[in-house]
């Protein structure tokens, strides 16, 4: 079913105690698009990502990915199926090296037997080397290779954000979802990030869902935008439509002069 859509979400609702974080949310996302999700703080954006990646069980609703229902799957199963994410609050493996952060993610589709690891068979060593090289290449795409041996927690903030995306990409996902990648970045870094995301999308043939408060970035990058407010879809459409939607301007964008300053 839904062969035209990579991701299809129906009537998704999540509540925490009395708070309705998501209510009757819907999405039909064809492959190779970039979708932007915007909305004020507490609108339910991150909650949507958490449900999508299996960290939170929804109260009701269905999620189909690549033709399969994944609604109540475990996070690791969803990751193996091809959805990978970055976190709003950076969640790296702080004490591991930058390279190891990516290697451990690269190995997602490997099935190493315990005995071959203990006996260091030739195939095992070859495999390990291939993993390292794959991870190294990915670091090069992000310009992080010069920090490969440093512990991830010692990286500068912007580098940490990019390492999170690199780690997410190392699982070779079909769908990449990134939560506020530009948070805390200056305009130069934000511009670089924009170029990087476009490059990644081409290079790895990705579908991307992006949460972002920076309107400049969203409007330039996204082909389609959804606006969340109090857990409900307040509007959706093309970037131009969203920019001109009076309700959205009132609820969220506010003074257009300020758009993008956050």
């Amino acid at each position, binding site marked *: 079913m839904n062969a035209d859509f990579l991701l299809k979400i129906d009537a998704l609702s999540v509540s925490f105690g009395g708070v309705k974080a998501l209510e009757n949310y819907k999405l039909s996302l064809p492959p190779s698009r970039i979708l932007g999700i915007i909305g004020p703080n507490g609108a339910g954006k991150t909650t949507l990502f958490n449900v999508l990646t299996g960290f939170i069980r929804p109260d009701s609703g269905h999620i189909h990915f690549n033709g399969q229902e994944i609604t109540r799957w475990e*996070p690791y199963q969803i*990751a193996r199926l091809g959805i990978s994410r970055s976190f709003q609050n950076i*969640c790296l*493996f702080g004490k*591991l090296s930058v390279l190891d952060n990516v290697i*451990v993610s690269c190995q997602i589709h490997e099935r*190493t037997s315990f005995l071959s690891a203990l006996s260091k068979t030739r195939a095992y060593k070859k495999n390990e080397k291939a993993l390292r090289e794959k991870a190294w290449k990915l670091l090069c795409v992000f310009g992080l290779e010069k920090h490969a041996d440093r512990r991830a927690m010692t990286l500068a903030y912007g580098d940490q954000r990019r390492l999170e995306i690199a780690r997410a990409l190392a699982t070779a996902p079909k769908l990449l979802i990134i939560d506020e990648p530009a948070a805390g970045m200056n305009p130069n870094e934000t511009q670089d990030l924009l170029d990087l995301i476009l490059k990644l999308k081409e290079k790895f043939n990705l579908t991307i869902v992006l949460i972002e408060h920076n309107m400049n970035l969203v409007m330039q990058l996204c082909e389609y935008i959804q606006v969340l407010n109090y857990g409900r879809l307040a509007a959706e459409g093309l970037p131009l439509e969203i920019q001109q939607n009076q309700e959205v301007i009132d609820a969220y964008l506010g003074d257009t002069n300020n758009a993008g300053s956050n």
Partner: protein
Amino acid sequence: MNKNKHALYLMISMGLFFCAVYLLDAYGNHYYQRVSNLMMIYVILTVSLNLSNGIVGISSLGQIGFMSIGAYVSAILTLPPGLKEHWLTGLPHWMSTIQSGLFPAMILAGILAAAIAFLVGIVILRLQGVFAAVTTLGFLIIVKVVAENWMTVTRGGRGISSLPTYTNLWWTSAVAVITVYVVLRIIRSPYGRSMLAVREHDLAAQSIGINAPRIRLLAFVISAFFTAVAGALWANLIGVVSPGSFYLWLTLLIIIMMVVGGMGSVTGSVFSAIGFTILLELLRGFENKIAVYGISSIIFAIVFMLVIIFHPDGVMGDREFSWDWFKRITPLF
């Protein structure tokens, strides 16, 4: 190439190590043999504990419970049949007529403890931090209570004595080397990287396809296996097992050894276990000489506190010994 050189260094140090084992085993006096055997057993225990608590980050206080299981399994298997029929009346008949050697006893001890760790782990490893600490401590207590009360199999509080003392320095040092090798190989394999990732950030690890509960269970089970093997060695070294031997003192001792060596550092655990065994023996001699009893425990505690104050991550942190680092601190090399 550096790598070949390091392999050579490693072979030389292993050669020296086993030469020392040979000399001690053939010509050493009983006291030195006993202390060296204990030292190797502590190395096995500390490295195993580090796998569960340091590498994958389970706050387990119950590992010595697996040592107890291993020691009792080995005791029951290796006790001479005459004594078994007399003391352990609860054993099935076929078991009371056989007497096993050390090696099968060790392996069976390890496997049984691993199986128990698997069952216990399924329940406990859903919990983390303080909750895991409390429940694993509960496990340790249960093991002790069972050992104290299952009279017809464990002989209760009197313990099982007159065990054949099969254990010698060859056994303990070989098992210690194997344990260190296996744990190091695990850490450097995809399994080990997953374990470290789970320790560093559980949710992020799951988000890249790691089945975190399963990885934790794996580390817990392997740790229990080697801990139980150490228990079997211990039983056939001392010749007596009793419930109180495997309890809070040993738990505390091994945790201190691990923390001082550095949680997450296998080689740190090795050095720390060796260092503390020597320190404890020196202190004991000192205590007997000046006849101020208890002073050794106080000094031991002070050493522990000083290390933790000045090196909160332990002496080695989560780094491993490397020859490059060794060269840097020993300029004559």
